[in-house]
């Protein structure tokens, strides 16, 4: 086989692709077994589902006026977790997403803020970030308009349908 500049370029490209594939596979599999990975995914989705429920008002402590996050943020729209940390005028400084979650709980909802280190706050973040997965991380300004995510059906994450109405 004659070695040319073109064949070297192809070989290098192929090598890069194969390496990337091998890395992706090993990163997924090692050091975890398929069962362990399934457990981790189940734990993540459990947290996402808890966040979904909290987002839609499952914790009475987070409101005294009846409002939940979902009133203003259906499908987590306009929550923009991927734009945090960002400067918000009501704080006068750069804050993380969880600070904004508690601002909404304490202000429009007039509820009791979540412990920022609690499983509940992690779940709220898990839900909002899960729905915004694949969006570029863009720490930004409060004034920036962002386009909500598209949720085709269901809750926006894998879940077991109830079989009621259209969610079969």
């Amino acid at each position, binding site marked *: 086989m004659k070695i040319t500049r073109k064949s070297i370029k192809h070989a290098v490209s192929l090598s890069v692709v194969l390496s990337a594939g091998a890395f992706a596979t090993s990163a997924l599999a090692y050091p975890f077994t398929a069962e362990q990975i399934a457990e981790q995914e189940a734990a993540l989705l459990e947290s996402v589902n808890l966040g979904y429920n909290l987002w*839609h008002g499952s914790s009475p402590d987070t409101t005294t006026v*009846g409002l939940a996050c979902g009133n203003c943020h259906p499908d987590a729209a306009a929550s923009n977790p991927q734009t945090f940390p960002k400067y918000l005028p009501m704080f006068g400084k750069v804050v993380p997403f969880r600070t904004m979650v508690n601002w909404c709980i304490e*202000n429009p909802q007039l509820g009791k803020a979540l412990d920022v280190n609690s499983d509940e706050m992690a779940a709220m973040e898990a839900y909002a970030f899960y729905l915004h997965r694949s969006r570029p991380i863009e720490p930004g300004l409060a004034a920036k308009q962002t386009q909500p995510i598209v*949720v085709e059906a269901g*809750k926006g994450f894998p879940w077991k349908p109830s079989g009621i*109405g*259209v969610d079969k």
Partner: protein
Amino acid sequence: MADMQNQSRRQFLTFTGKVGLSAMVAKAVGINLGMVDIVSAQTGKRGVEPFRFAIISDAHLYSMDNHKFDQQLADAVAQVNAMNPLPDFVLFGGDVAQNGTEDQLVKGKKILSELKMPLKVIPGEHDWYLDMGKAWSGLFGPETWSFDHKGVHFIGLNGILVEDFWTPAGMSPLERMTVMEMLESPIPGPWGVHAKQLEWLKKDVKDLAPDVPVVIFTHGPLWDYYPRWNFQTSDAPEIREILSKFAHVMSFHGHVHQTVYNKIGNMTSVGALSTSWPWPYPPVEKPFPASQMNRVDPSIATDGMGTQFIDLKADGYGIYQHNPFEEGVLTEFLAAGLKV
């Protein structure tokens, strides 16, 4: 007939030419001749007398005493009562209540009773699904109605009807209501007005002449804006077909808690600001992107909310003006008023 139309058109053009010259002279010397109404009066529409009406929508009242949404609805009523000129009447676009309880509906009726002018109401899903409209109907009357006012035909429909998902599932009224309260609930499916109201609508407009301006009022839009959030009415195509004989149809709706404008065939469509909270814009292209209001500031408690009014002219067309509680939310396109 064609000759008559052509002759009328020639006469009209001659007239508007003269009016146009007069208007230029008047403008030069700072005189307002009220040209729009003079010209419109000559366009052959059947006797529309110019008037104003207002829209208030989506109060979402809770049961707590002195809830902030109570005051926001009261502010909307005060805003309409302070308009000059006063609207002839007010349309309420649905969702008086948040959870459909009688106390919430009664509270809404009491606040709305402070309006200086008559009120016509259509239901929203939050008013309806606790008792399937029993309390709402007792307080506000029929959910389907029409009336004529100064040459314009007004129609109100119940556009939040869904197929029965609760009986097979054995759900309680409260469970049914809870499902319907969530905007992005995967359970209920799309709303509509359903067959009975479509038949009613056919009969209602059967004898109306095609040049009568029509206003149709539903909770959701009569076009597919974003069906996942029920920013739609499933049988809107049938409604538009029934109204297709009219030269000019104006569709006004609540539910979306935001400004949005569209034109489909003979119909213009405009969404109302709520008095409770604004909703984010859904992830779809808008037919008129400039009809999207500016970003709402969450730290201003009533930003992105308000009322709206429509000034109908003698030609049956009008200007729809959003009237927000806070300044800065309207784009130039919106602030100029939407042609409807």
